[in-house]
């Protein structure tokens, strides 16, 4: 007996919620970045689960697209973090307040 579709969707929902909570709780830009990766993975899981249960390969292809976007995001996001660290000697998002005053 296989696990039902609902189990996979529930797992995905739990992981997405943990990722969203992490983005809110973390102050470290790298920690927030990792939580966003976790949320992308949770969405990938729903894609693969629906692809399995409707026997359609489209879902798995879009997982591939999401992975490419995540790789592009990693390159640009880590570039921004390094540039920010060079200017502010910190990766705390609270220090990114140059536009505040």
């Amino acid at each position, binding site marked *: 007996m296989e696990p039902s579709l609902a189990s996979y969707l529930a797992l995905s929902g739990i992981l997405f919620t943990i990722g969203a909570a992490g983005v809110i709780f973390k102050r470290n830009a790298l920690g927030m970045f990792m939580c966003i990766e976790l949320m992308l993975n949770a969405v990938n899981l729903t894609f693969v689960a629906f692809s399995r249960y409707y026997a359609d390969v489209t879902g798995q292809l879009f997982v591939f697209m999401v992975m490419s976007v995540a790789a592009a995001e990693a390159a640009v996001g880590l*570039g921004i973090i390094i540039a920010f660290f060079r200017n502010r000697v910190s990766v705390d998002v609270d220090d990114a307040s140059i536009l505040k005053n």
Partner: protein
Amino acid sequence: MATNALFFLFAGLAIASAISMVYHKNPLYSAISLVGVFIALSCVYITLAAPFIAAVQVLIYAGAIMVLVVFVIMLLNLDDDQPLNRLKYLYIVGAGLGLVLLVQTLFVFYAVLRAPKQAVATNETVGKTLSIGANMYTMYLLPVEIVGVLLLMAIIGAVILVRRLSQPELENVVDDELTRRDEEDDIGDFRISI
């Protein structure tokens, strides 16, 4: 039955690693926990009969992206995350929004319980590398090309973002930041007090 047991084993592992990622203050521990989530998820993909996606998950996420993240953590030599000491009056608003999120989650669970228990269609070739590759270069050629352009843009953007300032300019920036922090210490950190 075996699939069921494996699914719950790796689902539990994924959730535990995800909680550990959010819990740890040290970014390196978070990164290693996230690798645990990725590997557990790749095992979950195998229970969904998607071996290609499982392999790509380990190669791209646990391999490429996390190596990049760990490299940046080592490069920046980060301290532990500080505890939250800002915006205490927003906790009540946060509790209200959390309640709304909980209600939404319960609604989603109700909707999810009506999902089909078993696969509505079975096709053994779905998930094999052959069918993914064949579809990628016939039906979904345009999205693949767009992703290629996106990756090129990301490469150019990353190179432009991290290009090095000339050394005197960099020292000026660091000096300015350090004097700004000293001034803030003198007048007290008003960002926290309001």
